[in-house]
């Protein structure tokens, strides 16, 4: 399956695949730490700031390019915060007109004192969007000045509790539209990662059921097993179609209703697709898939974690509903068909 084949240059897709294929498993001592080799490669190739403008030192890729890269990252369970660095922190830095150096991460919080920040302990810079009633402030911190307590999501990915210093390196007031776009960017980031993770679970299932022999034949010969795998394939294609469409819709901005609808749709679909992939994926793998000896869990736990980050899946279902309800009558059909 050729993800985003319509919108992304074939050579770029090949590059993503080749680079992320070299993603390393976690080491025994630091199973969930930063994959420094991969991160260096991403920096050297300019992919770490793929969607950034050239003026800001980025590679001027489209959001569709960025989504395709995140798909490759999700497919590899890559231990690099490339989405946080590029789509979130990089964008925030450009929006607030501040320069960042090193590995940057980003998070939103409702406090000026603390935040849970992905990959904070490996980052140089943390961009924190603090939203309190009626006010949104973007604060830039040097992580060496922060008190960081290591934390993790369901998959063990770094989600660190950070006490924020009273005085940030920079602080600017931003409008509510920035806080809003942050949510939608996070949603597309997670959706694209999930799409990649789903595709990997599917491939692992195909590999497993065609090689695992029981009753004297590969279990793929059993129709009940085939159907479990086919239902995962259906969710993979569905999620990829939704993410591809959303990435195209935001090309001209994230604030228009059809763009918001497309992103919320992708996020909802990705969240529910995880249900099928995780349950069916484990079912066909049998007991070995439930162990650390097999890599399946790296992907299934990530799917379960990602679909609950940046809002729960149910919240995104609700957001889809809100976007439709805000209009009247045939508004639903208008939103579905906007943009082709």
């Amino acid at each position, binding site marked *: 399956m050729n993800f985003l084949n319509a919108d992304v240059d074939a050579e770029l897709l090949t590059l993503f695949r080749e680079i992320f294929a070299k993603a390393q498993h976690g080491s025994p001592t630091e199973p969930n730490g930063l994959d420094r080799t991969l991160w260096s490669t991403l920096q050297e190739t300019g992919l770490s700031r793929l969607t950034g403008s050239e003026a800001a030192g980025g590679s001027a890729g489209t959001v569709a390019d960025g989504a395709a890269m995140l798909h490759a990252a999700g497919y590899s369970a890559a231990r690099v915060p490339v989405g946080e660095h590029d789509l979130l922190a990089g964008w925030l830095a450009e929006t607030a007109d501040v320069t960042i150096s090193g590995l940057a991460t980003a998070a939103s919080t409702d406090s000026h004192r603390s935040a849970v920040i992905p990959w904070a302990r490996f980052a140089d810079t943390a961009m924190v969007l603090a939203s309190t009633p009626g006010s949104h402030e973007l604060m830039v911190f040097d992580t060496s000045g922060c008190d960081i307590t290591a934390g993790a999501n369901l998959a063990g990915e770094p989600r660190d509790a950070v006490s924020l210093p009273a005085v940030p390196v920079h602080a600017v007031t931003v409008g509510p539209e920035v806080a809003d776009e942050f949510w939608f960017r996070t949603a597309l980031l997670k959706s694209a990662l999930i799409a990649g993770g789903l595709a990997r679970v599917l491939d692992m299932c195909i590999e497993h059921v065609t090689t695992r022999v029981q009753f004297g034949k590969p279990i793929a010969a059993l129709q009940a097993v085939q159907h479990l795998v086919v239902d995962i394939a259906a969710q993979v294609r569905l999620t990829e179609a939704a993410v591809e469409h959303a990435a195209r819709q935001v090309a001209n901005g994230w604030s228009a209703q059809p763009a918001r609808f497309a992103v919320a749709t992708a996020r909802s679909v990705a969240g529910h697709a995880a249900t099928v992939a995780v349950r069916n994926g484990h079912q066909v793998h049998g007991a070995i898939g439930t162990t650390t000896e097999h890599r399946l869990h790296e992907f299934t736990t990530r799917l379960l974690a990602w679909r609950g980050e940046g809002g729960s899946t149910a919240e995104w279902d609700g957001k889809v509903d809100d976007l439709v309800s805000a209009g009247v009558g045939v508004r639903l059909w208008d939103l579905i068909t906007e943009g*082709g």
Partner: protein
Amino acid sequence: MDAVTRADLAELRRRVRLFLRKKLDDGAFAPLIDPWLTGWDEVFSAELADRGWVGATIPKQYGGQGRSYVERFVVTEELLAHGAPVAAHWIADRQIAPSLLRFGSEDLKRRYLPDIARGRCFFAIGMSEPDSGSDLASVRTRAVQVPGGWNLSGTKVWTSNAHRAHAFFVLARTSPPEQSRRHSGLSQFLVDLRSAGVTIRPIYSMGGHHHFNEVHLDAVFVPDAEVIGTIGDGWRQVTSELGFERSGPERLMSTFTLLTEQFTARSGGYSATTRGQTVAHLAALRQLSFGVAVELHEQRDADVGAALVKLLGTKLEGDIVEDAALAASDIPAGGPLGEALMQRAGFTLRGGASEVLRGVVARELGLR
């Protein structure tokens, strides 16, 4: 996608939508559930044809518009989204015209395509038989060669709207299957439903409607000129068009008007999250379906995508009904929800049962 731009499609969509909203305002039709099977309205079909929206993909030399498949996709999804009565021309427009264009003789194209494009010639499909459902290769209708043509005998079933259509395509056995190739020896014929020896018996659906029929053929003479394509090549001809049949908007939009009602009626229908999940699922599926349309437009292989659209789409059509039904009490017969509950069971059967579609995808994934 070449030649047709997204702007062209948007403009076409705008015109179709404008027309349909005016028709709705005028009370020309009430939005239907499953309109492409149940909404037979010859006047409406002719009106659409006059605007170039029936047989749009038929080349101009045969009376059509020479439009692309993606343009047809836009027209048909607008019609279904508004619940318009499109059953009369549906089969001719979707299946018969493309088959004739691909496999029909020049004579057949000239005789039938202009009237299809005018919305005045309606077709049915004669594939299934009492003992041949999912296993289509087992058809027993026989065609025996006679001077000048063929005599067809057998029984076709689930032949939607045969009692109203002018003609139908019949899949029949012209020679015994070879040992290892059970799909060999099948051929396609164009049969006038008013021919001598044709008997049409209604089969009433559980909702009380008559759209299904059993069509009995008793030595019905079909001239050589009405053979579709090549004798013995029927299986390939039938299956090569499945992508078009399986991936279109009618595989996800049959109950769309029921979903829009959930937003307009505000009658304590399903919960907001369920509604949002359903809408998101539909929107994504529509993108997948559109993507398959583009693949077909570019003449790429789209069998897996098509099977997945139908698999997911027909399930979703049923889920929309189920969610509405779970949130309703005292559902009246004959209302939209009541109708939808009656029609629903057929969604995941017609055009390839879901179990069969899963098998198709499994094969493509290398599982069998």
